[in-house]
């Protein structure tokens, strides 16, 4: 089992003819993801290198191909609008990979998500993968192990790969792995995904990789306590050594006004009974232990 994406996922790629879009479309097709359509305004009627039909609008692509999920590889100045178009098109899930979208452009996107109930992963994220079924994103597929029992939720990209790799080498497979994105405004939070994983019978353990900035980790911790969440969670918070007031690569990774420190987040998670790793090298081993408890 899994959450959000699986063999039934029918994907439309927004920005399929761009450099990133074209490259990762090929990678996703190679992994076995059902990519059914692409969108590039003005190139409707053409086909891409993988023989995937291209449409001018997402709505048209959905109508013609029954796509139910969209992935966005559109440059930052146009990505906010691409998100709004996807939300309006009839798909139920949108994954936005683009990094560098102005925060002001994301406010109406978040509002549209709240109004419509469409779910969005990202932006500024590696995407989502259900190993062996569907890879919707830019992550390396081969590091994952299908038909597993652990879910992964992370604000990071390569640090997620690191954690997944640690699980896989220990023989621990994954149900679904999701990079939720490093921006201050993101479509789906830790909390939303804890709930979804809670309803997935296959998921017996969760890895949560947070980082400095904001309070999403604290909110997740509080919810875990209030709801007696019974899936064991292993967490790591990146940025224990980050200086305050500096943006650490991700737009959302900043300690401002003394808030959003790794120490605060780790303390909140520990209070919620979560297994918190101090070292990013201990994620796999800690999960191995947690699953046996």
């Amino acid at each position, binding site marked *: 089992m899994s959450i959000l994406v699986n063999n039934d996922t029918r994907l439309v790629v927004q920005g399929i003819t761009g450099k990133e879009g074209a*490259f*990762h479309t090929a*990678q996703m097709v190679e992994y076995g993801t059902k990519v059914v359509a692409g969108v590039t305004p003005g190139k409707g009627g053409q086909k891409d290198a993988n023989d995937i039909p291209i449409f001018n609008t997402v709505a048209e692509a959905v109508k013609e191909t029954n796509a139910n999920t969209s992935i966005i590889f559109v440059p*930052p*100045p146009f990505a906010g609008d691409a998100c709004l178009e996807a939300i309006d098109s009839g798909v139920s899930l949108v994954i936005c990979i683009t990094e560098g*979208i*102005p*925060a*002001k452009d*994301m*406010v*109406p996107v*978040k*509002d549209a998500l709240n109004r419509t109930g469409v779910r969005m992963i990202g932006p500024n994220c590696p995407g989502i993968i259900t190993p062996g079924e569907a890879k919707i994103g*830019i*992550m*390396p597929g*081969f*590091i994952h192990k299908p038909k597993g029992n652990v879910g992964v939720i*992370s*604000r*990071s*990209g*390569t*640090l997620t*790969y*690191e954690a997944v*790799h640690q699980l896989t080498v220990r023989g621990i497979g994954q149900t679904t792995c999701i990079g939720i994105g*490093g921006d*201050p*405004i993101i479509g789906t939070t830790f909390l939303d995904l804890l709930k979804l994983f809670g309803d997935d019978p296959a998921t017996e353990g969760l890895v949560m990789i947070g*980082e*400095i*900035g*904001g*309070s*999403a980790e604290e909110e997740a911790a509080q919810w875990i306590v209030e709801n007696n969440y019974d899936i064991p969670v292993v967490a*790591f918070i*990146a*940025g*224990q*050594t*980050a*200086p305050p*007031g*500096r*943006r*650490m*690569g*991700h*737009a*959302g*990774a900043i300690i401002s*006004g003394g*808030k959003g420190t*790794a120490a605060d987040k780790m303390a909140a998670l520990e209070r919620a009974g979560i297994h918190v790793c*101090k*070292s*990013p*090298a201990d994620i796999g081993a800690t999960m191995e232990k947690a699953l046996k408890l």
Partner: protein
Amino acid sequence: MNIHEYQGKQIFREAGVPVPEGYPAFTVDEAVNVAEKIGTLPVMVKAQIHAGGRGKGGGVKIARSIEEVREHAQNILGMNLVTHQTGPGGKLVQRLLVESASNIASEFYAGIVLDRSLSKFCFMVSTEGGMEIEKVAEETPERIFKVWIEPGADLEPFQARQLAFALGMEGTQIRSAVKTFMNLWNVFRDKDCSLMEINPLIVTVENEVIAVDAKINFDGNALYKHSDIAEMQDLTEEEPSEVEAKKYNLNYIKLDGTVGCMVNGAGLAMGTMDIIKLYGGEPANFLDVGGVANAETVAHGFEIILSDPNVNAILINIFGGIVRCDRVAQGVIDAMGKIEVNVPVVVRLEGTNAKAARQLFADSPLEFIVANSLEDAAEKVVKASKGEI
């Protein structure tokens, strides 16, 4: 991106937010000329650096005569101003703002931030002007009043009135404050700000509402829309190596330690710093080389890390996904052939083609310390930095 107070006030002035009459000065003579141009005394002589707490650090003085303007300007220009936000090293003052002093009747705080939990912008005011707002939020949160700007909407006049009444304003003050709040929001929206703080916003004895301070940060992701704002950046306020790194699209932040690191991805870069610390070392930097770790990128990364004389060992930690480890390895080998790297280099490459990468290092005549895992890498680089390997 940050700008100076005098630049923020210029933006405010153009947007109809009342600010004291004032001008920047780069020399003592200019400061005196500016004071004479203003024509009334007293004036404030204010150090312009990108940090708060300037008054407490001795960087803001009142001058009651032209002689005092000269005296203060002489003392402040060129001083190394240390505040709680500059760190112990302080910052060199190279610019002043000389502006007319106001007759303060009451001081308030006004600010606009992104509320990340609600994904909306939040306009907040407090009666505790001049205090650190973080402290107020912690000790007396009831003295902070907030309204949220609805997506697709603006600060509404009724919300601006709520803010003014929350500050206890009365009579003609209300009208001035409402206008000021609306104009502040317009600036925030039009210029894609990420943070705006006016501390203090004052009401004068003459019942005027004036922004005596202006702290504005801009959303770096939106700067492409605002070339006028991008031009305001004072590069002398930035760490030179960080400015250099930006030219090559490298995300570099200088820290105080001795262990340099070069990593792909921001999260893994932070995690690498953390594990260096856990193994008893101090990270010298944050460096995310991004998705393209080729010879050129790696060479620039080396140059920037090595421009810090404190660095005595370097850890390269790359998790190859789409980027292949053997390509990265070749990049590292080529880069070390190009530039002189005189400190031990520990490499840890995992992911796509990691085996081939290890072979390349083994076959290279250059000296590398190859690590097999993240913890092995951290242990080795910390040992190397202490001269133990």
